[in-house]
């Protein structure tokens, strides 16, 4: 059996980002393996440990994405296929290119992050499934392989959960709670450098440009209002005002 995790490299959530000419400047930011994709890597490693077979990483992105690929290989994946593309690409374009790689790899099951920390489209997993004509289960918090043709999964909803049976091959997207991703071990890091990363230029898979062009980017600025109510003179009035502000302005009560 073959298990695939699709990964991307994104800015660390704690990285300090800067705006430069209407675009986010990533040059100084720490870039990491998307944490939602980390669940995907952990899941395919566990599947391989339990059922045998191969754990393969499929990645999309610019040259620096290799750092994220090495992290996944150091965690224990066997090899990687890297679709290299500099510049923007919308999720549908990415999905079509990735689908060509997956059609050739013919995996048992594919996992990827439920959302992407950089563009937050939620679209990549389902779009890959669509391009391949495979079923898709989003936001999974549990997965059990029954045999090579089917699996059960838990899909979390806002106010409950669903258990589903899905025909394989399929694309599943992750949700927090699916597993606890491992840290790469030092011997794992040493082994990772000897593992194969097969590089394919995105153009060879039909990527000619992006269908959604990013015109500008801005960082949300959170201004603190720092309103201070004087409760020393008329405490009852101040309390009423506090309740009104919490209700009408902050909308928390």
């Amino acid at each position, binding site marked *: 059996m073959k298990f695939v995790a699709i990964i991307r490299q994104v800015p660390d959530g704690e990285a300090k980002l800067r705006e430069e000419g209407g675009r986010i400047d990533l040059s100084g930011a*720490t870039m*990491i393996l998307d944490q939602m994709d980390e669940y995907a890597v952990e899941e395919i490693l566990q599947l391989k440990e339990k059922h045998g077979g191969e754990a393969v990483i499929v990645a999309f992105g610019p040259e620096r994405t*290799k*750092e994220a690929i*090495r*992290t996944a290989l*150091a965690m224990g994946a066997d090899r990687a296929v890297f679709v290299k593309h500099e510049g923007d690409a919308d999720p549908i374009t990415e999905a079509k290119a990735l689908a060509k790689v997956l059609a050739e790899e013919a995996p048992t099951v594919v996992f990827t992050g439920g959302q992407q920390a950089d563009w937050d489209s939620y679209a990549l997993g389902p779009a890959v499934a669509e391009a391949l004509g495979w079923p898709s289960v989003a936001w999974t918090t549990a997965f059990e392989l029954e045999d090579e043709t089917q699996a059960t999964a838990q899909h979390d909803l806002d106010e409950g959960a669903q258990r589903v049976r899905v025909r394989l091959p399929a694309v599943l997207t992750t949700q927090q709670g699916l597993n606890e991703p491992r*840290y*790469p*071990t*030092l*011997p*794992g*890091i*040493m082994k*990772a*450098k000897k593992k194969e990363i097969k590089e394919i230029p995105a153009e060879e898979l039909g990527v000619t440009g992006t269908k959604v062009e990013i015109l500008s980017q801005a960082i949300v600025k959170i201004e603190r209002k720092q309103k201070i109510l004087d409760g020393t003179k008329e405490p009852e009035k101040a309390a009423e005002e506090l309740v009104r502000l919490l209700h009408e302005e902050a909308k928390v009560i």
Partner: protein
Amino acid sequence: MLPLSEEQKLVRDTVRAFAREELWPLAPAYDESGEYPWPQLGKLAELGLLGMATPEAWGGAGMDAVSWALALEELAYADPSVAVIVSVTSGLPQYMLLKFGTDEQKERFLKPLARGEWIGAFALTEPQAGSDPAALKTRARRVEGGWVLSGTKAWITSAGQAQLYVVMARTGEERKAITAFLVLKDDPGLSFGLPEAKMGLHAAHTAELRLEEVFVPDERVLGEVGRGLSHALAGLDSGRIGIAAQAVGIAQAAFDIARDYADEREQFGRKIRDFEGVGFKLAELDTKIAAARHLVWSAARRKDAGGRFTLEAARAKLFATDTAVTATREAIQVLGANGYHKDYRVERYYRDAKVTEIYEGTSEIQKLVIARELYR
């Protein structure tokens, strides 16, 4: 910054993520309780962090010295007590076993240390032999099939917790007739003092080692009889890179807290970082830390290249530990009264930093080593 390889960056990032997630939150509690951090060391062992620099053939991860220094810096950033335990077990006993041990000794003693099943300790210092180790009084008496050791060792990191002790003892009358022995925790006649009440590094136990007629068989002599002091000093060259890396981690952690605080705290209607008194202080510390890190990497690269690195290790330790004490003291000053409070962590880094100028050779001894190297 000098460039790092992709693999060295991955080591640094992995250890950073691990240490900030697993060690950082619990460091204040370990400082408070003074408990030896076995649960933390267990996690480090799983990642292969206790045998980083030992080759894979002997149970380690086979990392270069630069990676080892990067990892120690990240561990120290999160918890300096854990970092010194790791620096000692990997930098001293493992390094000495690798360099001077027989294959049989490596199989029996290096493997469990490198896999992190054991912690190792280094016992050179005595109550009356600190900076002058050749004055040590612990004696080894020749008997049939081995040696019998008697004496007291002081200030031994991990004493009472470690499973293996590299003990230097006198085997002849001349001043330097000293031999290194591998002593095991359960050897009859070996006992330990209570952990010393120290200013900092509370979780890294330091205690006396008492040897009362401890029999050590011939196969547990490490290296050559009579060459123990030279073997120990070679070990210290390696250990000093580890302590220097620990000092850089401590300095960086305190600096980061001060830098962030100065960006938040306002006085006289503006951020305190905008006052030259604070801004210049931070600029000076940042420069010192960067310079210290370069000295550490340069010593580690020299070690990786296979040459002598006595001078580079001494320079790195002298400068990095001075930087750690300065950076932590000044970080407290930037935070003002808050810096004096335990909640802000910088007071602990200050307490932890001070000993880096003392152990594995005081700053004065580093200067002595450097001065000698100049005319070598």
